[in-house]
C-alpha cells in the first residue's frame, strides 16, 4: 500500500521499499519534464534554523520549477526564534501560512516533534546529526539511474562512517535492496554496531577495510564522505588518517566500467579535482538529481502526483 499524501517525511525508514521506488519514479518524470507548473496554488514554507546552502537552494529551486511560492527564513537569527519562541509555536504559526513545511533544525529529533504538532506535512531537511532523508532519496535516485537498478549492488562507503548521517540512512535504505556493503574507514571511524545490525537483520553481508584501493576493482558505487577533523579526540590521529582516503583519477584505472563516484558534498580534499572530468565522477549530477527528487516529494505529499 503506497500512501504518501499528507504524510510527513522525517526519517528514510518512514518509507517502505515501494514508497521509496514510487518517489524515484515521480522524480524520473520531473527529470524528463522539469517545468511542470503544478504547484501554482500552493505555498511552501522553508524554515532553516541553521544555515545550509545546498539543501535549501535545492528545495527552493524545486518549488520554483513547480511554479509554487516559497516563504521562510534561511537562519534562526532572522526569525522569532531569536525572541525565544518555541519550536512548537513556530510550527503552529507557520502552518497557518503554508501547505507544507520544509525544515532544517540543529536539534536531533526536532523534525519528528514538528511532524507530531504540525497540521501540515513536514519534510525533514536535516535534524542535527540525526536524519537527512531527502539526501538519502537523491543518493538512491543517483544509484538507480547510473546502475539501472538498486538491487544486488556492491556498495563501497568510504571515510567517516561513524558520524556521517548520510551513510547511516543509505545503509538502512539499501538494506531493502540486497546490497553488499564494503566499509572503508579508519579504525576509529567504523560504522556503529547499531547500523551494522540493520545489515545483519536484513540477512546481508558487510566487509570492513582500511585501504580504499582494496574496494576499487569490484565496487559498483564508491560513496565518498569527508573525514571531519573535529571528530578526533587526538589531533595526531586525525593527521594520520586525513589524507588516507583521497581518491585520485589514476586509482580508477582498475575500476569497473559501470562504477560511479558519489559524494554528498561539500568535498574538501577526499576527491582530487583530477577525478572531476572522468565520466565515472557523478557527484555534481547527483546534486542536480536532488532537485528532481525534492520536486517529486513535494508533489507526492501534496497529492499532485501519484
Amino acid at each position, binding site marked *: 500500500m503506497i500512501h504518501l499524501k499528507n504524510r510527513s517525511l522525517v526519517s528514510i525508514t518512514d518509507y517502505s521499499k515501494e514508497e521509496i521506488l514510487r518517489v524515484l519514479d515521480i522524480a524520473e518524470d520531473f527529470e524528463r519534464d522539469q517545468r511542470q507548473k503544478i504547484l501554482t496554488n500552493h505555498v511552501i514554507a522553508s524554515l532553516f534554523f541553521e544555515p545550509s546552502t545546498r539543501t535549501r537552494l535545492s528545495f527552493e529551486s524545486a518549488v520554483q520549477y513547480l511554479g509554487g511560492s516559497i516563504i521562510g527564513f534561511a537562519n534562526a537569527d532572522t526569525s522569532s526564534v531569536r525572541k525565544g519562541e*518555541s519550536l*512548537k509555536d513556530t510550527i503552529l504559526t507557520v502552518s497557518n501560512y503554508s501547505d507544507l513545511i520544509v525544515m532544517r533544525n540543529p*536539534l*536531533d*529529533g*526536532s523534525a519528528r*516533534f514538528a511532524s507530531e504538532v504540525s497540521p501540515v506535512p513536514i519534510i525533514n531537511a536535516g535534524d542535527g546529526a*540525526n536524519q537527512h532523508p531527502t539526501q538519502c532519496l537523491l543518493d538512491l535516485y543517483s544509484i538507480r539511474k547510473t546502475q539501472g537498478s538498486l538491487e544486488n549492488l556492491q556498495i563501497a562507503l568510504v571515510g567517516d562512517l561513524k558520524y556521517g548521517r548520510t551513510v547511516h540512512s543509505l545503509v538502512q535504505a539499501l538494506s531493502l535492496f540486497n546490497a553488499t556493503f564494503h566499509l572503508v574507514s579508519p579504525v576509529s571511524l567504523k560504522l556503529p554496531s547499531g547500523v551494522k*545490525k540493520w545489515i545483519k537483520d536484513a540477512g546481508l553481508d558487510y566487509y570492513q577495510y582500511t585501504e580504499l584501493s582494496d574496494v576499487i576493482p569490484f565496487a559498483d558505487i564508491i560513496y565518498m564522505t569527508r573525514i571531519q577533523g573535529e571528530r578526533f579526540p587526538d589531533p595526531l590521529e586525525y593527521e594520520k588518517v586525513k589524507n588516507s582516503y583521497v581518491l585520485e583519477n589514476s586509482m580508477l584505472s582498475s575500476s569497473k566500467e559501470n562504477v560511479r563516484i558519489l559524494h554528498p558534498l561539500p568535498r574538501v580534499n577526499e576527491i582530487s579535482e583530477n577525478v572531476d572530468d572522468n565520466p565515472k565522477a557523478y557527484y555534481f549530477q547527483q546534486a542536480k538529481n536532488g532537485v528532481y527528487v525534492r520536486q517529486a516529494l513535494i508533489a507526492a505529499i501534496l497529492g499532485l502526483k501519484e
Partner: protein
Amino acid sequence: MNKKRTELKVSALRNGTVIDHIPSENTFRVFQILNLEHIPDQVYFGTNLESKKLGKKGIIKISGKFFAPEEINKIALVAPKATLIEIREYEVQKKEQIALPSHVENIVKCMNPKCVTNNQAVPTKFNLIYDHHGRMKLACQYCEKTMAQEDIWFV
C-alpha cells in the same frame, strides 16, 4: 525474623496493592515513578529487607489503590523482577511478576544533550528494543539514539 514480619504486613492490608521484590536501592525510585508522594492513600514501605531472590529487597504497600498494568509496568525499568500482589478483603486476589512495557513516555530522560526533548518542552518517548546479546535498550522516538539500561536517568 524479617521475613515473618514482612508477611505480617502484607496480610494486614485489607484492600490494596503490594509491590514486592524491588531492588533495595530502587525502592524510592519506584515511589517516585508511581508518584506515591502525592496520593492521599496510606502507603507503607520497607527497604533493605532480607530476600532469598535479591539479597536485599524493598517492598511497598498501598492501601485502597490498584494500578492499571501500563501504569505498574513503568517500574519494570528499575525493578524488573518485582512482583505485583493485589489484595481484596485480606485475601491475595492476584500475584504476578510485572512485565516490561514496549514503550515508555515521560519517565526517562534522553542521554543525548542535542535531543529536542532536552532543549524544548517535549515529553520523552522511548521504545524498548533488544540488541543482539538480548540486552534491553531504550530507543528515543525523537533523536533515534539508543541507551543502555545503565544510562537511564529519570525525568
